[in-house]
């Protein structure tokens, strides 16, 4: 897996996109976003109405091309290679 990702998140905030990546299972390749949420334990919900395989509404901004195309950074490429290429950064 690629990464690591570092982020500062506000407790109780909405999903925060950490990165855009390329996701491959060996049969198909998709673009994807990596997202995280966090709460102080005394503010957290016990469950989220979500599980792997569910569908969620895609915000077009998640995958919008940047105004100026940027090359993947050396460190991002290194991480993707080190991670076996399962997930790789797409230049975000």
């Amino acid at each position, binding site marked *: 897996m690629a990464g*690591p990702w570092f982020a*500062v998140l*506000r407790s109780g905030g909405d999903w925060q996109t950490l990165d855009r990546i390329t996701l491959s299972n060996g049969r198909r390749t998709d*673009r994807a976003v990596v997202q995280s949420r*966090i709460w102080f*334990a005394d503010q*957290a919900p016990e469950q989220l109405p979500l599980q792997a395989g*569910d569908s969620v509404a895609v915000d077009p901004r998640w995958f919008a091309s940047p105004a100026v195309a940027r090359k993947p950074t050396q460190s991002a490429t290194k991480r993707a290679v080190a991670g076996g290429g399962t997930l790789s950064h797409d230049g975000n």
Partner: protein
Amino acid sequence: MRTAISWLVGLAVAGSVLAVAWFRPEWIVPAASSVQGNPSSVAVSPVPEVSPGTVPEAVSSLLEPGDLIGSGRAIAHPHGEQVCASGCAASRHPTPPLTWAKFQQLLARWQQEPLGEPTPALEELLFYGRQSLVYLRRVSEKALDEKRRRFLEEQLRRTHVVVSFRVVDEHGVVRVFLPPTRVPLDIRHEYLMDTHDLQPLVTSGTVKRVGLYHLWQRI
């Protein structure tokens, strides 16, 4: 029967020793002292087991029984001194030791700042988390306004967070998901994430407090 009882007693003793080694390592190996400060400007309640200028360096020594019990989806790793040498995913991201002198400085600065707002001194005190809490409990009643003490202690007692993580593909399918999972601050964990139409992942992360409302996450 006697053999069974002997086995049970042996297991109980071994379990107790392991629990002490994990939660109170300083009972077995004395914690190394950090830089000593001069506790002159803030009065200190006499607590014999830890001198005012000493802070346990390992976060694990500040944990209390039950602190590492999570949801079963996060596995704690021992805290250590590793830095980002072979890859940040392997780092424990240890919090630097807080000295008594530094704590005094921060407390004095915070007393000049408005209460209840995300001010620099407060957020630094919160960054040190459990270490600040150890020192706060040694500050005399006269040295700190009761309202401020209650506020700071309430914030410092927030030692756990709940994290959730997902990877959503361009078709809106959640391919990776970590349900809300309770973990203690400052301790690296490996996460057991669900995947859909994707091979299993090996993931880990650490969360540190960096503000009144904000948390830093490495995943």
